């Protein structure tokens, strides 16, 4: 039960924040918080791969983009002029008709169909790429995943179907059920904030249970020592692969939802720096720390999306990475970091006095 207390606290915070934002007449804060929430789904999935299974992935933005672009293409491509396949899709009831920004009626795939297609695509790609890539280790794994991310980015940027440098806009809303829809319409801002919040709460509940299970223990044993885990009968490559695929699905779903929320997607969502920032946030969150990753993910993305730092935004992000790696290499959200200013001052002093006896050389 103890595990669910922080989740309840999160739910209470979500409600209080919305109430406070609405009372203060600053509901527009909820827009950026919604986006930050979707990004934190990617980060939570990546925490499982990095913190628990001990495998780095520098290409997770690719899975996010796969979800987003699949949704965007399938829900904006007009099937009215299509061939036999389009006819079949229409007759199977996989399509809906909506009006685009120019007032013209278009027939396109239902967002549910595109969500399913995005998940199937991501699972297949993550599975196929994961088998050879997860055999790599250390820096070679970093390069392999980085390379995969670059390939996806280049395909997105160079292909006419994906809108090249302009991306895809006019993505319609995603009607979930009972009039609730993922859309960027300012009138449904509060509603969308709660959709994102529910997604985050579901994800973290699932992952907290997963890391506490037999699977979670197997993953940690792989992180500790892969050979030893294998000798104990843990099927290491299968576990690594399943976790990789699972985290890719989280990234993909986040991509689908955020694309419907933003009403479009651009190639910057697949950029290498995006993947790098996901990795960095997992690290500053404390690696094997789901709550740390969630808090850092939401806070950093929110501050950046609100544009508090103007043209110094990236500099602040780099500075935060350096600062946390120097002073809090195990993440900020740890009990030992909350023992008053004297302890923190002590730590700062010892870091500054360090002369390099740290095992690097």
């Amino acid at each position, binding site marked *: 039960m103890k595990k669910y207390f922080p989740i309840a606290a999160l739910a209470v915070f979500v409600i209080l924040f919305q109430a406070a934002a609405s009372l203060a007449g600053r509901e527009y804060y909820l827009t950026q918080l919604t986006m930050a929430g979707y990004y934190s789904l990617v980060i939570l999935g990546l925490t499982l791969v*990095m913190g628990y299974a*001990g*495998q*780095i992935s520098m290409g997770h933005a690719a899975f996010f983009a796969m979800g987003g672009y699949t949704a965007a293409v399938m829900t904006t491509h007009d099937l009215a002029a299509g061939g036999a396949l389009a006819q079949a899709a229409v007759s199977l009831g996989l399509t809906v008709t909506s009006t685009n920004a120019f007032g013209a009626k278009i027939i396109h795939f239902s967002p549910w169909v595109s969500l399913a297609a995005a998940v199937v695509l991501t699972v297949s790609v993550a599975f196929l790429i994961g088998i*050879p*890539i997860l*055999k*790599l*280790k*250390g*820096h*070679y*794994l*970093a*390069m*392999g995943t*980085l*390379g*995969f991310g*670059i*390939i996806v980015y*280049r*395909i997105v*940027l*160079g292909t006419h179907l994906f809108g*090249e440098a302009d991306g895809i806009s006019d993505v319609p809303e995603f009607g979930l059920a009972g009039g609730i829809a993922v859309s960027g319409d300012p009138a449904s801002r509060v509603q969308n904030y709660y959709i994102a919040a529910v997604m985050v709460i579901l994800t973290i509940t699932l992952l907290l249970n997963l890391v506490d299970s037999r699977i979670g223990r197997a993953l940690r044993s792989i992180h500790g020592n892969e050979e030893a885990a294998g000798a104990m009968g843990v099927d290491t490559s299968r576990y690594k692969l399943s976790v990789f695929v699972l985290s890719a699905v989280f990234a993909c779903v986040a991509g689908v939802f955020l694309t419907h929320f933003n009403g479009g997607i651009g190639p910057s969502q697949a950029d*290498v*720096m995006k993947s*790098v920032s996901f*990795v*960095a946030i997992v*690290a*500053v969150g404390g*690696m094997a720390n789901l709550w740390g990753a969630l808090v850092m993910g939401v806070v950093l993305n929110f501050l950046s999306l609100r544009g508090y730092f103007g*043209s*110094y935004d*990236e*500099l602040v*992000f*780099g*500075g*935060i*990475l*350096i600062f946390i*790696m*120097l002073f809090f*290499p195990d993440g900020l959200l740890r009990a030992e970091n909350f023992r008053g200013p004297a302890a923190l001052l002590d730590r700062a002093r*010892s*870091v*500054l006095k*360090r*002369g*390099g*006896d*740290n*095992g*690097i*050389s």
Partner: protein
Amino acid sequence: MSLEQFLQYVLSGVTNGSIYAMAAIGFNIVYNTTGIINFAQGEFAMLGGMTAISLSAFLPLPLAIALSVFLVSLVGALVDFAFIRRLGKPTVLNMIIMTIGLSIAIREVALHIWDEKVRSLPYFTGTEVSSINIFGAYISPQVLWVLGISGIIVAGLALFFRYTLTGRAMRACASNITAARLCGINTRNMVTVSFMLAAAIGALAGCIVSPITQTQYDCGTPLAIKGFTVAILGGLGNSAGAVAGGIVIGLLEAFSISVLPLAYKDAVAITVLLIILFVRPAGLFGKKEAARLKEF
């Protein structure tokens, strides 16, 4: 494809490849003494180009480049003194995040110093329109500068590592750090030297390509990714492998343009790299142990 065309592609591939090799050698030098990939390596090249451009406004070109290389090597030393030395028993991932943070910070500081404008050094000889005819293929004289200077750097490094005390001490660190320390080598200072050397090589590479590819505050990251690709392809820590890997990647990219749209150029080299890694997980010339050691 005519012979002239073929030669043109080869020359362009080798030129780009030698720049990638420079970046990869910078990675290798730091990797060999520390076991980390310094993701800020590309930023050294950007800083080198930018500083030389600013200095060339009131200094003769060779002097501006020399001073820029010296200043950037000081930045390399500062990176080690101010940040790498202060890390307490870091994991490899902590060090990677640290250098990514430094890379972002250096790039953004450069943005605020030099703004977003694209700049370039003047051509070392001739102008952007002068060209030399080699068996029917046309190249800019700057290409000869790039090839010549990279050749000199590679040869110079080989001599440095073989015949100087510092160079030998650095090799000792690379092969066995404990044994090196037992021999009385100050391994800490070797890390500083390796950062300075990597920064200097990066800066020089950044200067010699500046007339061809131009310099902007964010030109470091793509170069770092290329350098990392090449270093992995050649086998981490193997500088001869880096040269071979650089030329392989350069040629692949050059010839890919003749069959595929330009937009996919970057993806082609990396696809080939991934296929090679799947078959040989330690790169073309890397040792198996190197790919297993120093994991996360």
